[in-house]
């Protein structure tokens, strides 16, 4: 039985979890202190015959103390959160060596566009478009940075990979970028985390995080391998690259091919 | 100013004398009689309502950087400028009516109220005529963002003016029945505030929708 965080599988997961636990410990301590105080007061100051309440209107000192302490703790928390947030979401902090990917969401599926052998996602009108598309499945190489272009064709969706601790809305009419680096191989689920219609609950995709070799083999299988990929996959470079265009017809390709 | 503040404090400030309070009429906490205060609070919320509409227009046009048609090619600026002037005039006649009510000048009160109603009605009429023409030229709420924002903002303003004209007409009838005699100007001042507010909104709308 697994009733807590899914196992962390991305480069930022550890940071997010650490912040979560920091807040959990702080709030947990406050929770125990305040609720215990409440319980003690309930027992200790319950009405008994002849008891009279003390006439206390307040205490400046006490109030300043319990305004200042939470303020300090909370502001510290904000200061600790800021750099993590900046690292995850600010475009200026995105890794430079990332591979591009594009995900277009529509009711109720994820269309993942992969760059072809040229390593670039072409803009729609590119004539030598060698991109290819997969529905609901995202194949990634472990420890490789990715920058994903997120768009939506119809309503607001939210790209959520619990194991990566990543969530980002996809808004129609907007082009939002997201970066991630998977750190564990395996199969993880993609969920939609924003109500997108009655099929919202089945807008499920899968992430396959592979070793470079597995990934290259997969690319070759798709007929989309570049020369370098073929080397990684253990095939001879020249024949694989030559064979690629012929095999490509098998995969749907480019944006909007569904 | 200070003398007045003194008077207010004496009459209705904190710790009012029981006798002064009992009628609930005299100025209370902030020295403003109840209807006027209520109207101002209502106007504060109207500011937020128009903020939503005008703000959306600003956001859609400048924030999101949408392409915008040349407003001067679509809308008839000279007509609307004249119409703006009519609305301003009706605001002036409104304050004149208010001044007449304060000094209990029934003749002028009735005359200026009537002028105000007529001015407001002309404004609404011209707006309706403008709408009909625009629709004939194929400019509809569904014609892009400009159509949508234009009709929503001016439409809701027009709705406010229409409500204003109806209540002004009613106030005028009451004035002819002599309900505002003897320096009883509160009703006139309160409806006047609403009327000027609608005028004020139009001043903003005219500038940012028609001229910019």
């Amino acid at each position, binding site marked *: 039985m697994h009733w807590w965080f899914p196992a962390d599988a991305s480069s930022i997961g550890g*940071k997010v979890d650490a912040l979560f636990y920091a807040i959990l410990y702080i709030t947990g301590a406050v929770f125990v202190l305040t609720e215990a105080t409440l319980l003690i007061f309930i027992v200790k*100051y319950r009405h008994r015959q002849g008891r009279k309440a003390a006439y206390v209107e*307040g205490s400046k000192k006490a109030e300043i103390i319990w305004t200042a302490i939470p303020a300090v703790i909370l502001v510290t928390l904000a200061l600790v959160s800021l750099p993590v947030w900046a690292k995850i979401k600010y475009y200026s902090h995105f890794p430079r060596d990332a591979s591009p990917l594009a995900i277009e969401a529509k009711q109720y599926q994820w269309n993942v566009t992969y760059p072809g052998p040229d390593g670039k996602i072409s803009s729609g009108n590119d004539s030598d478009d060698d991109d290819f598309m997969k529905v609901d499945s995202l194949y990634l190489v472990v420890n490789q940075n990715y920058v994903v272009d997120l768009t939506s064709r119809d309503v607001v969706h939210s790209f959520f990979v619990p194991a990566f601790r990543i969530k980002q809305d996809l808004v129609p009419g907007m082009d939002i970028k997201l970066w991630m680096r998977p750190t564990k191989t395996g199969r993880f689920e993609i*969920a939609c985390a924003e*109500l997108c219609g009655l099929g919202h609950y089945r807008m499920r995709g899968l992430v396959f995080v592979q070793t470079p070799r597995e990934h290259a083999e997969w690319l070759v299988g798709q007929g989309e391998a570049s020369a370098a990929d073929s080397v990684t996959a253990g095939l001879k470079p020249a024949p694989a690259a030559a064979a690629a265009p012929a095999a490509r017809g098998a995969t749907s390709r480019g944006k909007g091919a569904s | 100013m200070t003398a007045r503040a003194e008077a207010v404090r004496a009459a209705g400030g904190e710790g009012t004398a029981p006798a002064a309070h009992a009628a609930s009429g005299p100025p209370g906490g902030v020295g403003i009689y109840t209807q006027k205060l209520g109207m101002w609070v209502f106007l504060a919320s109207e500011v937020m309502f128009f903020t939503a509409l005008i703000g959306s227009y600003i956001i859609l046009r400048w924030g999101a950087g949408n392409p915008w048609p040349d407003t001067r090619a679509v809308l008839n600026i000279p007509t609307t400028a004249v119409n703006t002037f009519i609305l301003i005039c009706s605001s002036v006649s409104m304050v004149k009516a208010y001044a007449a009510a304060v000094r209990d000048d029934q003749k002028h009160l009735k005359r200026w109220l009537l002028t105000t109603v007529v001015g407001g009605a002309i404004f609404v009429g011209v707006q309706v005529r403008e709408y009909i023409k625009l629709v004939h030229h194929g400019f509809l709420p569904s014609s892009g963002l400009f159509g949508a924002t234009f009709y929503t903002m001016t439409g809701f303003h027009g709705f406010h003016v229409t409500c204003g004209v109806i209540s002004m007409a009613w106030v005028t009838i009451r004035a002819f029945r002599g309900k505002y005699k003897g320096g009883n100007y*509160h009703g006139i001042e309160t409806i006047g505030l609403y009327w000027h507010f609608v005028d004020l909104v139009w001043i903003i709308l005219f500038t940012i929708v028609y001229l910019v």
Partner: protein
Amino acid sequence: MTASATAAPRGGAPHAGHDDRSFIRKYIASTDHKIIGIQFLFVSLFFLLVGGLLAMGIRWQLGFPGQPMPLGGWLPSGVAPGGVVAPKMYISLVTMHGTFMIFFAVMPLLVGVFANYLIPLKIGAPDMAFPRLNMWSFWVFVLSGLVMLSSLFVLGGPAAAGWTAYAPLSATPDYTGVHLGQQLWCVSIVLFGLSSLLGSVNYITTVVNMRAPGMTWFRLPLSVWALFITAILAILAVPVLAGAVIMLLFDQTIGTHFYLPAAGGQPMMWQHLFWFFGHPEVYILILPAFGIVSDVIANGSRKPIFGYASMVYAMISIAFLGFIVWGHHMFISGMNPTLASYFMVSTIVIAVPSAVKVFNWLATMWRGDLHFTTPMLCAIAFVSMFIIGGLSGIFMASTPVDMYIHGTYFIVAHIHYVLFGGSLFAVFAGIYFWFPKMFGKQLDERWGKVHFALTFIFYNLTFFPMHILGVAGEMRRIYDPTAYAYLRPLQPINVFITINAFLLFLSQFVFAGNVVRTLWKGRKAPLNPWRDNGLEWTTPSPPPHGNFATIPTVYHGPYEYSVPGAAEDYTPVNQPPAAVPEPAR
């Protein structure tokens, strides 16, 4: 203008004894703030029941996905084939549960009931400033509620875009298949906004202008302060929602493109406008609860509220900050992350005044003489549940953590801790406390305690496990969580929650029974059953039309309990001080 002029009986005395209004003027089209408050009470309790029933549908599906509901066979097969909740019905259930609970149950229960009933009585006024406007506020509310109810029965079903109605899902029927239902939702919300506006103008004007002599700002009971600040929030926030919803309605009906990206519209604009209203709304839903609980805790502890002034300042700063934190609902919405950082900081700051309030309540109980009456128990439960709800809010304030828990059951747990554990416990505290005032009869304390205990237990068993679901990554508004492999192991928790939710729902019938029984054959309540200081207890229960035989004069603050040297442990605010000749001015 004339609205105010007609009804307010001057000084109250003329009507106090003999009330010759017709039945309709007295109980239906009444302009008496007390009747309006009671009307709000019963209507919004009805909507609370509706919202609760919808929640049972949600919980059934989550606990036992795909199994026929008990009595589900009665529903038309288009909605629930074979009594099983269909995906579309599920989304509608979620949407309408949120809508009914927030707009038609909790908000009118807190504001409609208590602002109407308490403000004039507590400040010593004969009625509201604009009694007829007040009546319209109620009837427009009823109308908006009926429109919302009717949307449940129209072709295509009710709104199905969540209570937040995110565009473009809500902006065109293409995406949900809901035509009329979504439009009725918009119409109803606009009407609701109008009702809330009329009410708020009244509350503000009344508090400002109609306080009894000697009732200075800093002698106002905290409940009145809270309701006053709430009304200001409503005045400034609700019109923005109305404007946004009107544009949404135009998108649906007359072909505009405010929120539809096809012609340059901005879905994000809806989110901003909605949450610009939505966050102050959160405080509209909790500030009156703060006020009620402060009154009840001071009374139950027989002690002055600790730090009265800082309680007021805390509420004022919460209200102001409440307007500049709305972006924390949108951290992952694609909003500029730099802006999100600003919103994180403002959000974190707003937690401080809330913390101050909790500490002040605890300090009020410190060295008190605690009487565990039912209202006091509910108020203590409020404090203890609000601690949890407040602390879980801190997780969301931290942007990176929010990225993970946003849109999960952690959020669901949080809002229920604040809105149910918080607001609703305060509502119960308020109802138990002022029931004797409203009806002249006191709710049975024994059954009240049974109701409290059952609610408290099942409430926690229902909502606390939702935190765990959230941490495990279960999304909200998911028709069938078992569609995801990583959520399948959590199903026992969902079953557990569902069972407790049913028990929580059933427990409320103890309350309903208590109310009915008391109204039917309850004993007459003493004049001041809680030995409270408030002005409302200085008139008969229920108070006559016009409230006070003579307008009272107030001599001191509202929380003068256990004053040293006094014979009684309470000092009504209109009791002249023995030694001091003049009231402080």
